[in-house]
C-alpha cells in the first residue's frame, strides 16, 4: 500500500512540476514590444533589437540553458570575480561549516551547563532573549568594523545566528530529562561525568539535534545574504553579480541550487536525528 502511495505522490509531484512549467512558459511568452515603432533603424540597433536581450522574465527554456551551461563546467576559474558554480558553492559551504562548527563548540557545553543549573538558566535567560531576535545581517556592520576582515565577518555572522536555536534546544533538552532516570542514576551513585555522558546526553540528543537542524537551516539562509553584502566569493556573490547584469536566468539557476544544497544539508541532519531518536 505504501509503495503505491509513494508512486502516486511521485506522479502527482511530476504533474505539478509540468503544470508549473506550462504556466511559466505561457506567462513569459515573448510579446512584441512596439515601443520602438517609428524609430530609425540605427536607434533600434543601439537599443539591442535583433540581438538577444535579458529584459523581461525569462521563459523556462532560457533558464534550462543556464542550467546546462553552468553545470557542464562547474569548476572553471576565470579570475577572482568569475568562478564556476561548484567553486562558489564550496566557498559558501566552507564558511557555513566553519561558523556552524564554532557555534556547536560554544553552544553545546554552554547549553548543557544552562540546562543543568536553574541558576545559570535564570542568569543567562535575559541575554539570550535579547540577542536571539537580532537579524544576523544587523551584526554585519559591527563585525566588519571590529573584526576588520570581510570573510571572518561572514563566518562570525553565521556563528552568531546559528548559536541560539542550538543553545536553547540543548538547555531545554538537558533540563527536561526525566526525573526518574536521574534518580536511578543517583541511587546507583553514578559520578557526575558519567551521568552527563551516559544518561543526560543520550536522553537529550534528539532535542539537541533538532536544534542543530534548525541552526543549519538558518545558517544557510544567512550565508547567501551575507555574501551579497561582502562579496568576493560564494553563491550569494554569484547571485549579486548576476543581478547586477539583470541576468535573471542565472539568478533563477542560483536560487534553485541554493534550494537543493539547503535540502541536502537538511537531509543530513534528518538522518542524524533518526539515528539518535529513541522510543520510551
Amino acid at each position, binding site marked *: 500500500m505504501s509503495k503505491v502511495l509513494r508512486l502516486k505522490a511521485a506522479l502527482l509531484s511530476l504533474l505539478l512540476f509540468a503544470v508549473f512549467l506550462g504556466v511559466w512558459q505561457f506567462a513569459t511568452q515573448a510579446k512584441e*514590444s512596439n*515601443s*520602438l515603432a*517609428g*524609430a*530609425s533603424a*540605427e*536607434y533600434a540597433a*543601439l*537599443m*539591442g533589437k535583433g*540581438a538577444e*536581450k*535579458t*529584459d523581461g522574465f525569462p521563459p523556462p527554456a532560457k533558464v534550462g540553458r543556464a542550467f546546462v551551461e553552468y553545470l557542464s563546467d562547474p569548476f572553471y576559474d*576565470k*579570475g*577572482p*570575480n*568569475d568562478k564556476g558554480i561548484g567553486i562558489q558553492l564550496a566557498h559558501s559551504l566552507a564558511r557555513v561549516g566553519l561558523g556552524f562548527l564554532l557555534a556547536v563548540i560554544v553552544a553545546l557545553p554552554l547549553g548543557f551547563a544552562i540546562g543543568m543549573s536553574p541558576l545559570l538558566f535564570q542568569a543567562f535567560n535575559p541575554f539570550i532573549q535579547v540577542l536571539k531576535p537580532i537579524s544576523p545581517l544587523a551584526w554585519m556592520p559591527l563585525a*566588519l*568594523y571590529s573584526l*576588520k*576582515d*570581510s570573510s571572518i565577518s561572514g563566518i562570525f555572522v553565521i556563528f552568531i545566528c546559528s548559536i541560539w536555536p542550538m543553545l536553547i534546544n540543548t538547555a531545554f533538552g538537558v533540563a527536561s530529562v526525566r526525573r526518574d532516570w536521574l534518580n536511578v542514576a543517583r541511587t546507583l551513585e553514578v559520578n557526575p561525568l558519567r551521568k552527563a555522558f551516559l544518561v543526560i546526553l543520550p536522553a537529550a540528543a534528539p532535542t539537541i539535534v533538532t536544534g542543530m537542524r534548525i541552526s543549519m537551516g538558518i545558517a544557510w539562509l544567512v550565508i547567501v545574504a551575507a555574501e*551579497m*553584502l*561582502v*562579496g*568576493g566569493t560564494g553563491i550569494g556573490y554569484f547571485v*549579486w*553579480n*548576476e*543581478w*547586477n*547584469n*539583470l541576468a535573471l536566468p542565472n539568478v533563477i539557476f542560483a536560487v534553485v541550487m541554493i534550494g537543493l544544497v539547503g535540502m541536502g544539508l537538511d537531509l543530513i541532519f534528518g538522518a542524524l536525528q533518526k539515528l539518535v531518536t529513541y522510543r520510551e
Partner: protein
Amino acid sequence: MALQNPFDPNAVLHRCSCGQHTSQVEHELAQTEALNQRVIQTTVMKALFPEDAERRRFLSAVGASTAWAAISSIVPFGTLEAMAQDKGAPEKKDLKVGFIPITCASPLIMADPLGFYNKEGLNVSMMKTAGWALIRDKVLNKEYDASHMLAPMPIAISMGIGSNAAPTNVMTIQNINGQAIVLAMKHKTNRDPKNWKGFKFAIPFEFSIHNLLLRYYLAEHGVNPDTDVQLRVVPPPEMVANLRAGNIDGFLGPDPVNQRAVFDEVGFIHILSREIWDGHPCCSFAIPTEFVKQNPNTFAALYRAILKSSAMARDPKNRPIMAEVLAPANYLNQPKAVLEQVLTGKFADGLGNVRNVPERVDFDPFPWYSMAYWILSQLKRWGYVKGEVKYKDIAERVYLLTDAKKYMAEVGQTPPKETMKKFKVMGKEFDPAKADAYVASFAIKKV
C-alpha cells in the same frame, strides 16, 4: 617614528623630532634619502676597492673629499640614487585592488588584461566590490592595498567625515564626465526640474561627485535637495533594478548603469553630467598614505601602470576594444552593446534619438587641486563639513598632484604646468582662490 596624523589638532606639523626640518614628514624623507645615498656609495666603493685595506690606503693618501670628488666625476651618484629610489623592486608584489563594476574604473581594470601591472613587476588581483561603503571599509581594514574610489571619498576619509580619519591619497583621477541623470520612462514629458518636488533620486554614495552634482543641479532650478526631494544611497549596480521596480524616480548614476537603463527600456537619459560641469572628476585611484610610505617602490610602479593605462583609455581608437575586454563577468558583467555606446559616445537616449557625444566620458588622470577645492566647497555648502575649511591644506595633502606630475613625466607624458584652473559649473564660474565667497553666493544651502 610614525607619521603624524595631520588632521589631529594636537599634532605638531611645523617642527620635527630633531628640530632641523620644518615638519616630521621632511625629517623622515631626509633620513630615508640619506640612508639611500649611503647604501649606494657603499656599493660603489666596495666595487672599486674589493680589499678594505686598499680603500683605506687610498682614502688616507688623497683625503676623503678629494676621493669623493674624483669618484663622483666618473660615477654618476645622483642618477644612481634617483634610479634606486624609483625603479627599485616593489616592496609588495601581490596587491589587491578593489573596484566597483562601472566604466569609471576602466583605466585601473584595463591595466590588468593589458599587462601594465605585470610589466611593473606587480601581481594585482582585481576585486569586484558590492558598494562604496564596503570599499571604504575594506581599504580601512587593509584588505585592499589600493582601490577605485569616488573623487570626494579620499577627502572625506582623510578628514574623518563619515568614518574614522585615515589619511588617504588620490593618485590619479580615473575619469572625467561619464555620468548622467536618468529618469523613469513615466517622466518622459516632465523634463523641467522645477516640477520634480517629491521625487526620489538614487545616488551612489554620500561622498560622491554624483551627490554634489545632483544637489547643485536641483538647487540651481530652485529645488532644495534636502527638503524637496529624497536622495537615497543605492550602489550603482542596483540602480536599474530599483528604477524598474519603481522605487525611485531617477538617479544621477555612473555609466554603464545609465545606458543600461535605456537599453532595458526602463529609463531615458535626461542630461549627461558634462552638461552640468564639463570636465568634472568622478572616480579616482586612491591609496592609503600609510601604504605609500611603507611601499614607495610599489607605489611608483602602480603610478606608472595606471598612468599608462589612462593614456591608453583616452585614445578614441581603443574604445571599442575596451568595451569588448570589459564586458565579461570577471570585470563589468554588462552587455558589450551597452559599454560600446558609453565609451564611443554614440548612444540611444531612450527617447528615440541617436546622440553622438564623443566626449561623453574621458579618462584624464590629472588630479587638479581645483577639483578638490570645488568638492570641499560643496561639502561645506551642504553641511557635511562644519566650520572653516582649509582648502589648500586638505587639497595638497590628499591629491598627489606633484607625484602625478613626476610620474607622468617619467612615462613620457606631458603634465600641465599649473595646479589649479578656473572652470564653469552650469555657467557659473568657480575661482578656487575665492572658494568661501563661492559657497556664500548660493541661495539654497545648508550652512
